[in-house]
């Protein structure tokens, strides 16, 4: 997928002007946020579990190679295959090679953000293979040729009538006057349409929420059941995942399963959690004849040991975006690449370079709500801030901004001069404010005054007023002004 993160501002402005998008994302508060709050409120151990999860992840990262090797051994021992992919190219080629070897015409797909990272669908189409997205949201987006705007709810930006129209246009074989006015009828139609694809598919591709080193299993955590149909009914099952998804044991899985659904959708448990270990066995009625795991790095190993390592702990629950007021204002597409919201702002610069994505870590007020809800306690704002440091260090910010910043720091380290400057500024702004005591326009702050007034200051600074009070008190010999203004030492 070609990133367009550097156009974040324009994309955001466009989203802000779109009333439909505003309506869709405005619903996050009553929807996903409220559901999460209720589910978390019912589990007193939620905080302890977050800490457990963070520790499990830290332990894994400190020995990632060991866990991956153990996973690999187990997969091979169960008759599965493993394909290591250093880059997106490696991964695409590995997947294509499997598809070509088995003569695949159609490929069903469960929801997988990693395959979005690979731009896999377009790639397969170019090679003459038809991918069919089977997750309802992803299916709708494939029909509309759109990218997901959320990592858990890919079509959250769409309104029901958009989907209705898409189905009418995309399913011309069905009676045009059929009733599609309810969400239920749309879901039923998609179910009907996709059913035969599951049986026809040569290859089924899914992601993995986790890989378990102990058992060599890949795990999907889902609600619709399409992921399971994809991996059970196709002749060949290909799991596409990334190196940081490995966890040691089944018990560790349980810890994450107590956190993930609550954080993602406010469920105690999702409808399905499936652990897959290897291909079909003797006596099995269903199951794939081949089981492949493609494990992608794509820049992640370089995060390991870095100050931004913790972003590798992400379990892709989406809570950070559901609770982000910036994401809630502009939606997912504005971010311009696979991972939107605070997760994207922290992760994207590592994967595609800060040069192409500096706008993302800057587009945050650092309100910290994402950190407060992240089930694995990733310090998302600290990571975003470090990308800003990187950007500043590489002199990628505007010269004016850099000069302003140094001038301010220079001034602030000279208190006497600083007092003069602030005194003048306060006086000047108060003067401009006049009797309205506010400014409607201000140099260098057009962004502010385009939308709001700038309240004028009182006139004299605090420090100036305090100095005068002191002087007056000294003259009259008055007692009571104990707050001396003086050096730190008496």
């Amino acid at each position, binding site marked *: 997928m070609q990133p367009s993160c550097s156009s974040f501002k324009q994309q955001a402005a466009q989203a802000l002007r779109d009333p439909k998008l505003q309506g*869709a994302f405005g*619903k996050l508060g009553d*929807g996903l946020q409220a559901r999460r709050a209720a589910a978390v409120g019912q589990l007193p*151990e939620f905080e302890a*579990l977050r800490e*457990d999860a963070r*520790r*499990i992840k*830290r332990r894994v990262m*400190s020995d990632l*190679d060991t866990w*991956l090797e153990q996973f690999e051994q187990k997969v091979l021992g*169960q008759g599965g295959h493993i*394909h*290591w992919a*250093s*880059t997106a190219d490696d991964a695409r*080629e590995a997947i294509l090679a499997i598809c070509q070897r088995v003569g695949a015409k159609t490929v069903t797909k469960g929801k997988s953000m990693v395959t979005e990272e690979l731009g896999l669908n377009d790639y397969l189409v170019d090679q003459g293979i038809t991918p069919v997205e089977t*997750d*309802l*949201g992803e299916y709708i987006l494939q029909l509309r040729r759109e990218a997901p705007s959320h990592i858990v*709810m890919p*079509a959250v930006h*769409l309104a029901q009538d958009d989907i209705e129209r898409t189905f009418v246009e995309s399913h011309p074989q069905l009676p045009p006057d059929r009733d599609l006015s309810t*969400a239920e009828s*749309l*879901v039923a139609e998609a*179910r009907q349409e*996709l059913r035969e694809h599951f049986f026809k598919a040569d290859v089924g591709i899914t992601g993995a929420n986790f890989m378990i080193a*102990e058992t060599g299993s890949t795990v999907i955590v889902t*609600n*619709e*059941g399409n992921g*399971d*149909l994809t991996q*059970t009914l196709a002749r060949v099952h290909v799991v596409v995942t990334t*190196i940081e998804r490995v966890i040691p044991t*089944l018990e*560790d899985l349980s*810890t994450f399963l*107590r956190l993930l659904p609550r954080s993602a*959708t406010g469920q*105690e*448990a999702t*409808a*399905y*959690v*499936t*652990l897959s*270990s*290897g291909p079909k066995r003797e*006596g*099995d*009625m*269903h199951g794939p004849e081949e089981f492949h795991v493609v494990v992608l*790095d794509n820049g992640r*190993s*370089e995060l*390991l*040991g870095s100050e931004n390592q913790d972003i590798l702990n992400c379990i892709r629950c989406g809570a950070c975006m559901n609770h982000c007021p910036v994401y809630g204002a502009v939606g997912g597409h504005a971010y311009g690449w696979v991972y939107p919201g605070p997760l994207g702002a922290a992760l994207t610069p590592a994967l595609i370079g800060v040069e192409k994505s500096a706008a993302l870590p800057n587009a945050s007020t650092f309100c910290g709500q994402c950190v407060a809800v992240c089930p694995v306690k990733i310090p998302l704002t600290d990571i975003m801030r470090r990308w800003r440091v990187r950007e500043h260090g590489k002199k990628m910010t505007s010269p004016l901004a850099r000069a302003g910043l140094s001038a301010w720091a220079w001034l602030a380290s000279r208190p006497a001069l600083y007092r003069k400057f602030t005194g003048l500024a306060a006086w000047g702004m108060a003067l401009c404010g006049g009797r309205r005591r506010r400014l409607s326009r201000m140099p260098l702050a057009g962004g502010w005054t385009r939308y709001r007034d700038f309240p004028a200051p009182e006139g004299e600074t605090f420090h100036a007023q305090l100095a005068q009070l002191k002087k007056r008190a000294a003259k009259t010999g008055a007692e009571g002004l104990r707050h001396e203004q003086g050096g730190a030492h008496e």
Partner: protein
Amino acid sequence: MSKGGRMSKARERIFAAIRRNKKPLADAPVAGEGGARADTIPTHTIPVRTQLTAEALCAEFEHRLSAASASVEWVESASGIPAAVWRHLSDQQRRTQCFANGSAAELGWASVPELDIRSGAGDADSPVCITSAFRGIAETGSLVLLSAPGHSSASYFLPELLIVTLSRRDILATQEAVWADLRRRPEDMPRTVTLVTGPSRTGDIEQKIVLGAHGPRQVHVLLVN
């Protein structure tokens, strides 16, 4: 370069980068953490609500099942299952073929001759499927379904109505207890282990919850005393 050669190159590159970059745990070791081996199981938090008496366990399981929009019914013994299935089916479902697998296939279906039960390599796409669960988890109201000879793992996801039988003594408190039971079995890890918690669902259309996305619209559990 051959594909295989390229892949082992990629493997080398990834592992070299990991070994170069990884940092040992800076924190003091987490309590109960043995070593960096999968067979040492760290202590971890288990919700207090799972500490239940045998009686309460069943009640909690039922409660969570219904919270997950599944329905439950008790039957006195396995021989009562066919009649219970018949009672649960709608008129329309009674007219269709039902697919039974696992130990559910071996029940005395002849006691309800009106039922059209297929087993073995029957049609996994039937609108009604009856299967047996390995365990139940009271904490979440989840059914643990395994792939095994005689089980069609696809049939857990294909029908409109999934009926699952479970014996009372197989209701456990937590996932952890299920993992322990799985390890105790002489066999390997099953090819698939699926935790099913209620019917299939989606929230992809305006965050509205709709049941029966791709999988069963209804899950009915028959608990055998």
